[in-house]
């Protein structure tokens, strides 16, 4: 495995444009393990410490990778979930009696607010972690590296095709929506109207997807997908001894941290 990664000399250079920036240059599998560890610790370590530490690391990584500003849309996307977490837990936390104030039937509690605050931080830390991974690592890069490490061809294909099919599905939704609108379907306005408008979209979307899958299956067979041979590696990615050590540390250390947290040995942390 090359320390710098790349493609063999006989393969055109554009197949793997050199990554730029310190964080981006990390091996895709290293970045995946970092994101997984961050998510597990954010959700698995009790109290404020887990999500706060993870969020700090994620934001620092994002800034180092030069994607800080691009995290904002992902942060905004968490607002509906975060708002519901805050409202439900602050006002309806079961068994909490330490009321902040009472206003008619509304009685928010400090216990609920603290729990909601921690849950909010966990969600944001997870979202930011996934966003940093997504913004610094192409899905095809990640899959190519995992395949090189021995992941099965079919698993690699399913993973990669799933990620790359998202824009195509969204495009199809847009086309069907426009076609249905052209025939008088109301897909805007009040929520119940929008929900009702989804029903006529589901059929064409589902049947269209099934037809595509059938044709794609045949096209794959026609390209030798089921051949039992081992595929030649085209792309390799930067790797190094420190990164290998980091991956080992993450793989072994994350479950250990979770275990220590679960049995209460991190009780001294806020």
């Amino acid at each position, binding site marked *: 495995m090359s320390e710098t990664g790349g493609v063999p000399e*006989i393969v055109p250079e554009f*197949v793997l444009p050199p990554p730029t920036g310190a964080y981006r240059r990390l091996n895709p599998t290293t970045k995946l393990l970092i994101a997984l560890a961050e998510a597990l610790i954010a959700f698995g370590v009790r109290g404020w410490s887990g999500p706060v530490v993870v969020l700090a690391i994620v934001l620092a990584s994002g800034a180092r990778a030069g994607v800080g500003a691009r995290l904002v849309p992902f942060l905004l996307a968490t607002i509906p979930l975060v708002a519901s977490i805050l409202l439900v837990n602050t006002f309806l936390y079961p068994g909490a009696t330490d009321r902040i104030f009472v206003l008619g039937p509304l009685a928010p509690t400090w216990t609920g607010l603290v729990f909601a605050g921690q849950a909010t931080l966990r969600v944001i830390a997870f979202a930011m972690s996934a966003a940093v991974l997504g913004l610094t690592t192409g899905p095809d890069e990640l899959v190519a590296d995992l395949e090189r490490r021995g992941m099965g061809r079919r698993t690699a*294909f399913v993973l990669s095709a799933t990620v790359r099919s998202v824009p195509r599905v969204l495009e199809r939704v847009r086309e069907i929506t426009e076609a249905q609108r052209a025939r008088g379907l109301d897909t805007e306005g009040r929520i119940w109207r929008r929900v009702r408008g989804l029903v006529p979209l589901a059929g064409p979307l589902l049947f269209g997807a099934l037809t595509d899958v059938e044709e794609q299956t045949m096209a794959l067979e026609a390209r030798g997908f089921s051949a039992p041979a081992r595929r030649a590696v085209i792309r390799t990615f930067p790797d190094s001894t420190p990164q290998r050590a980091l991956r080992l540390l993450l793989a072994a250390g994350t479950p250990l941290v979770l275990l220590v947290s679960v049995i209460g040995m991190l009780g001294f942390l806020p």
Partner: protein
Amino acid sequence: MSLSLRSVTYRYAGSSRRVLRSLDLSIERGEVLGVVGANDAGKSTLCLVAAGLAPTTIGGRLDGEVAIDGAPSAGARPHELAQRCGVLFQNPVTQLSGTTATVWEEIAFGPRNLGLALEAIVERVAWALSLLNIDVLAPRDPARLSGGQAQLVALASVLALRPAYLVLDEPTSQLDPQGTQLAGEAFARLTRSGEVGILLVEHKTDLLERLADRVAVLAEGELVAVGPAAGVLADERLEAWGVDPPARVRLARAAERAGVQLPVSAA
């Protein structure tokens, strides 16, 4: 050396209807056989059967024999068939793997599946790109190509498997005029290379007139005419079989009805 169908009858799985009936056809290497017919005549089914995908991949019942250069397709595994006979469908989007970042890697997808060495993969990709004159597309993202470009990339991806025969199922039906022109030029280049035998199902008889050596007409699963392209495409019965004659033939007939003498070049 030919792709041959002998007394081929085919039924889809779960259906008793014979979609193809007692077909006898053969395509020589270096030859283009055009296939026309009305909707539901069995053209796409013929493509699946000729390429070996039916019944190998999609099931159904096949009577008769399909053989490629003398070797029966029955019993062959899909990846073995892929190297003998490539197939290109109507929709360029569904034929791309959807897993690659560049056109170069998309074309390399098939040869990689076969377990070829990197040197051979690189050589085949370069050959396919060059044959279709699409070298400039190599660094592009396959998901961001026009319909015509995507169809050419799909064709190059099939060609990279070096099949002796190609089955093209209405490859221009979802393309705009510019895309059709691009694809038509690529098919012409391919036929001039003389390296592969091509079965080309196509509604656009103008395109067939330019490309095909012979044309076969399918009607309700039966072969009702087969012969040199010029003769079959000028057959008086073509419209009754649900096929529009080429513009040249329609023009000549209109001129004849109107008593107008056309210049030799137009007729």
